[in-house]
């Protein structure tokens, strides 16, 4: 069985909070974040 793949679009407050939570809960989940700007997690 191939691993489940989560794609997150947007790497700031909401996207990175979710990505981190999901990966922590399920380390087997493949998590990929696409962010068009040069920074992540910059707002809150």
């Amino acid at each position: 069985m191939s691993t489940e793949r989560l794609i997150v679009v947007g790497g700031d407050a909401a996207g990175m909070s979710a990505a981190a939570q999901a990966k922590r809960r399920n380390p087997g989940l493949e998590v990929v974040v696409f962010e068009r700007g040069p920074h992540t997690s910059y707002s809150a």
Partner: protein
Amino acid sequence: MEEIDSPRGRVRVRDLQNNRVVWESYDQLLLATGAVPVCPDLPGADAVEICGVNTLQSGIELRRILDDRNPKNGIVVGGGYIGLEMAEALVRRGMAVSLVSRSPEVMKTLDPDMGHLVSQALRDFGVTLYLEETLIGFETKSGKITGVVTDRRSLPADIVILGLGVRPNTELAAAAGIPLGERRSIRVNELMQTFVAGIWAAGDCAETFHLVSRKPYYLALGTIANRQGRVAGVNLGGGSATFPGVVGTAVTKICEVEVARTGLQESELRELGIEWASAVIRSRTKAGYLPGAGKITVKVLAEKGSGRLLGGQIVGMEGSAKRIDTLATALHAGFTVEEMINLDVGYAPPFSPVWDPVVIAAREAAKLV
């Protein structure tokens, strides 16, 4: 990311470093694309000296323009918290700053009587306010900004900062047929799932629910983005969490003055057809005899008849704003103002008068409902 192909479970992404386009497939997709600043469609609006501040990058670019050109005249358009915070920052750099806003007072997330206190604080700090004026255009000379035109005057400007609010960044979601709600934010359930299987949304691009009006609601704040992101992440990671909604709490600080609001304000209550009573009280942030006891004004709104707390607003000196959290918690709990009178909040002279200002306001409101 440039396109969502939900039937095939994939998104099209462009690598901005080498311009290569690839399709990436997903089992689950979370949209956390945030919000974008509202930009007026006016001639001259593309001059570089006209800035919105919405990302770290845009803040860095604005800072570079300020450092390189040392502009003298700054105009801020918009009287929300971003406009106000920027006006303060420009004054602190020694610039002459004017603020243009369509509303009768700045901070229209407050009732006008409370917003008036903030307008006054800005004037005291040296910001010239042009209220109830609408931006109609920009003056430029060979591509450089020279002025801002309102429906009543034209003002000289070397730099213009736009704080006209934000709108959810949902064009790609809409193009993929994902249902939108309030102000074109992405509709979600309590788990943060959209109404398309396998696609989730959280943060400034997503809709939320107002726990006082019991209606869908849109509010772009980092507080909510973090909470919604956490809930989406827990569920995506196999756990279970729900996001019930918000009561509309926000705080900010302009110069020395702290500003806070929660719940519904008068304009919203009028629209919802809810009858309310309101009390405004003036007190101190510490025991009155202590040095540093600052002024604080608290407004509490409660439903006529039932006495149910509907909202509150605070303007005052250091130590004022976070008192809104008592009101926010009471809104979550569905308390009446009567029930708030005996809330066991703390007191010692360095922190508040023996009756907390928020509780004093609730007592006054309880007499009026």
